[in-house]
Structures are given as C-alpha cells and as structure tokens.
C-alpha cells in the first residue's frame, strides 16, 4: 500500500486517475469505488445516490452522485456496462465512504459490455500511483481518514 500526503493508494487496484478505483472480480464484473484522496476532497459525505441494479451506463456516465456540505460530484464508470449490484448501506450512511473507501464502502458492481476493453481507460501499479500523487499535489489534498 502506497501512501502520499496521508492518502492511501493501493497498488493492486485500477484507477481512472481521477476519483475512481475499480477492482476486477473473478466473474468478469468490476467493483467500483472512490479513492482516498477523492473522499478527502469531498469532505464528510451526507448524501449518496446510486443507480439502480439493471441500469445500463455508457462510459463516463455517473453510476453515483455524492454530496457533502462543501462538495458535490459524480462517480463515473470507466467503461460501458450494466449495474449488477449496489452498496445500499451507503444510501443510509454515505459517511462510510470517508471511513473505508477501498473496503466496505464500495459503491457498485458493474458488468462491462466488452470485458476485453474494460481496462483500457484504467491504470494500475507504480505508474498509476505516481499519477495519483500528481493529482493529490495538483488539488493540494492532505488526506485524513475518519474512524467513525
């Protein structure tokens, strides 16, 4: 696990180099969430909307929207696909994203239309971590993780 300005950046995940991480699952689907620096930038989240299971999304469209007292934004999917699961716990308690963005606070699971190209817009490993470090510097983010 890499860390930069307090932000955790797991090297085994795939990133859009903005807000989103994606983890390939054994069944060909991808679990999607937001990164530690992204949750820090957002502040304490108060509202989350996640697309219903069965919704089809084109690449770049938002699978979820998040709002805090000081920030609002969307969580884009990096590839076209259908939502096959969503984390309903976040609808009740969006603040979970501030606590465990890479674990319990996953946002949705998406089945890509074309699994062969799903990773094309995503980056992983040391190059991704370096790009995310640049992102953190660009937006002057200092991560702090909430414990409750």
């Amino acid at each position, binding site marked *: 696990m890499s860390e930069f300005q307090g932000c955790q950046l797991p090297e085994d995940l795939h990133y859009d180099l903005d807000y989103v991480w994606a983890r390939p699952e054994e069944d060909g689907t991808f679990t999607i969430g937001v990164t530690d620096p992204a949750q820090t930038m957002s502040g304490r989240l108060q509202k989350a909307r996640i697309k219903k299971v069965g919704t089809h999304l084109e690449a770049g469209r938002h699978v979820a929207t998040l709002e805090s007292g000081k920030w609002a*934004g969307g969580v884009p999917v990096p590839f076209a696909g259908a939502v096959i699961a969503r984390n309903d716990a976040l609808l009740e308690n969006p603040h979970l994203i501030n606590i465990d963005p890479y674990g319990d606070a996953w946002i949705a699971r998406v089945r890509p239309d074309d699994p062969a190209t799903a990773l094309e817009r995503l980056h992983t490993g040391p190059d991704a971590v370096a790009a995310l470090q640049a992102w953190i510097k660009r937006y*002057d983010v200092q991560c702090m993780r909430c414990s409750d």
Partner: protein
Amino acid sequence: MKSPPFSLGNRFTRSALKKESTVSSIDQIMQHDHERLDALLEACATAVQESRWQDAAGLLEQFRRGIVEGHMFVEETMLFPAFEALEGDGEHSLTALLRKGHQDLRVFFQEMAEAIEAQDAEEFNDFLSTVQTILRQHDAREEAELYPHLADAMPDHGAAAAQRMADGQREKGHE
C-alpha cells in the same frame, strides 16, 4: 488597488446588469452571469416539473450554451490564465479545482439532457440537485477567491473578457 470599471455600451450590460446601464467591472459581470445562468436553470427545472418537455429541452440547451460556450470558455481561456500568471507558478490549485469542476459539470449537463429526452423527471431532479450544489459551491469560490483579483491580474483590467461575454450574449440574442 481596485481597478476602475470600464464602459460596455451594449446589450449585455442592459439586460444582464439591469440596474447598471453601461458601467461594470469584470468581477461584477461574471457574478451577474452566475445569476443569469441560475435563473435559466431554474426555468428549465420549472418546465420539467410542469412536464413541458420541449420547453425544458430548449431552456437546458440555452443554459448549457451560456455556461459552457460563454462563461466557462471565457474563464478557461482568459480569466484563469491571467490569475495563474499573477500567482506565478503555473496551474494553481484553485484554478485546477475550478477547471475540474467545469469538466465534471459538462458530463452532468449531458445527463440532464438525456433525462429530459427520456421525460424522466425523477432522474432529472437527481441530477439537478447535484448540479445546483456544485454550482453553488463553485460560484461562491470563484466570487470569493478568483473574481476579486481579476482586474489587477489582467493588463486591460478585464475589458477584453467583458467584451467577449457581451459578444456571446449578443450572438445568443440574435438566434
């Protein structure tokens, strides 16, 4: 030092600034444009609530063109570079955040248009809520941290940017 305002004897100042017939500064012009765009978006939301889908589509397109091709274009090509030059170290974290806000908003505008096309008021309202929150925070930050520095950051005190905003308004008025 606060820079002097300049004259803009054109339609933009009469329609958007209302109370001020010919004189305004670049920060006032940009703030008034926020208000004008907010009103357009509200009108679009009202049309959606009343199921006037064709009106809603037209109003959203008017809003989108005004904000993307007018307001954001002037900010990204003239105002942000001037602010960055004033600060002296390339892209500033403030302008980086504001540019990112613009990028995020463009996707939401497309999604709002798709919701109107699908005549899906619930979907539209979800996007509207998020977009209005983004705009409220984005605009407040621009008005507090960027606009007050613009006149001093630009050699012409923002006259060219103000003229570009006015030209954009005039073109839209003739459509």
